[in-house]
């Protein structure tokens, strides 16, 4: 009894409805590359191990654009290491609701990714 209704309610609560409009992936990646002088698109050794081994094994795909590691580098440069790291952790926790928070969406080889990179470092 009420099984369908309960399932529907859970689905409704668990579904993020994107408020974002779509943009061009090439432009977004170009902009991000320029924003940190080309650095965030170059992977460090730890990133390579994580992305090429662990992420592939676990089939973990980041919904954000830039990815959390790129975001950390950009934010650390913009707002300092401590604030940048904490913002990156906060963003990692918010990934499930990326569609709700993002500025706009891009189509990355058939996969939707959500762009989120505030220019400001203001917290309050």
């Amino acid at each position, binding site marked *: 009894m009420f099984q369908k209704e309960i399932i529907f309610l859970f689905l409704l*609560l*668990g579904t*993020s409805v994107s*408020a*974002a409009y779509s*943009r*061009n992936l*090439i*432009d977004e990646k*170009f*902009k991000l590359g*320029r*924003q940190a002088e080309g650095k965030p698109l170059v992977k460090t050794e730890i990133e390579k191990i994580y992305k090429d081994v662990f992420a592939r094994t676990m089939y973990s795909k980041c919904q954000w654009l830039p990815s959390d590691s790129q975001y950390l580098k950009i934010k650390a440069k913009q707002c300092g290491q401590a*604030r940048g*790291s*904490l*913002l*990156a*952790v*906060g*963003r*990692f*926790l*918010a*990934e*499930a*609701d990326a569609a*709700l*928070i*993002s*500025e706009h969406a891009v189509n990355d080889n058939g996969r939707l990714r959500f762009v*989120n990179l*505030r220019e*400001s470092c*203001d*917290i*309050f």
Partner: protein
Amino acid sequence: MIFFNYLILFITHFVQADCALKTDKLFEQGKAYFTNGQYLLAANQLATFTLLTCNEAQSLEARIFWARSLYELNEAVEAERVILPMAKNQMWESKVRVIRAWYQPELKQSLALVEQDRFSEFQRQVSQLETIKKPWLAGTLSAVVPGAGQAYNGNFQSAVLSFVLNSIFLSATIELHREKMGAAALASGMLFSVVYLGNIMGSMDSSHSLNENHQRADQERIRDQVFPELRLPQ
């Protein structure tokens, strides 16, 4: 002699008409790309148009959108190279000044002094826009109960994740401390601190993002009203 004059006039007219016919499409397409936010394509199209066009007025207008596309792509140096020669032209000087001030925050303050009235009017109107979330409230809620700020923002999945992760690290820290495993408790405590502070910062950052998304259309409307120079092509 008269015949030759007419012939030259005819040929010039024909060449110009042909040139306009070929390049007009480039200009229209370039502007359409710019309006759609496809800035790389817009820059390419408009750069080609300025090279090929015979219409001086349209060429200058295209340069403006070419430079704006480059600014949008964070290519400020290239954009300056395109737009600065136009500042010498009296007709375009004011427009160039506003565009440079708009896209380059470091110039905004100095150029805002020249356009002080308009900049303060823009800021006044933007500050009056409605915000849908209060970052301080989201932060406070997340500090009291991890995940509560995210729930306040309407991000229920991240609220659950924040709550669960914080609970795991906090309980692990307490348990390890009870078991007299100092080093492990310290490591777990440090992880908890990072996740806890990240949860607070994340909820506040999300509130800001939600407010910015909510205000974007209105901000663009105000920008177009106060700075007609920055209006998108129709």
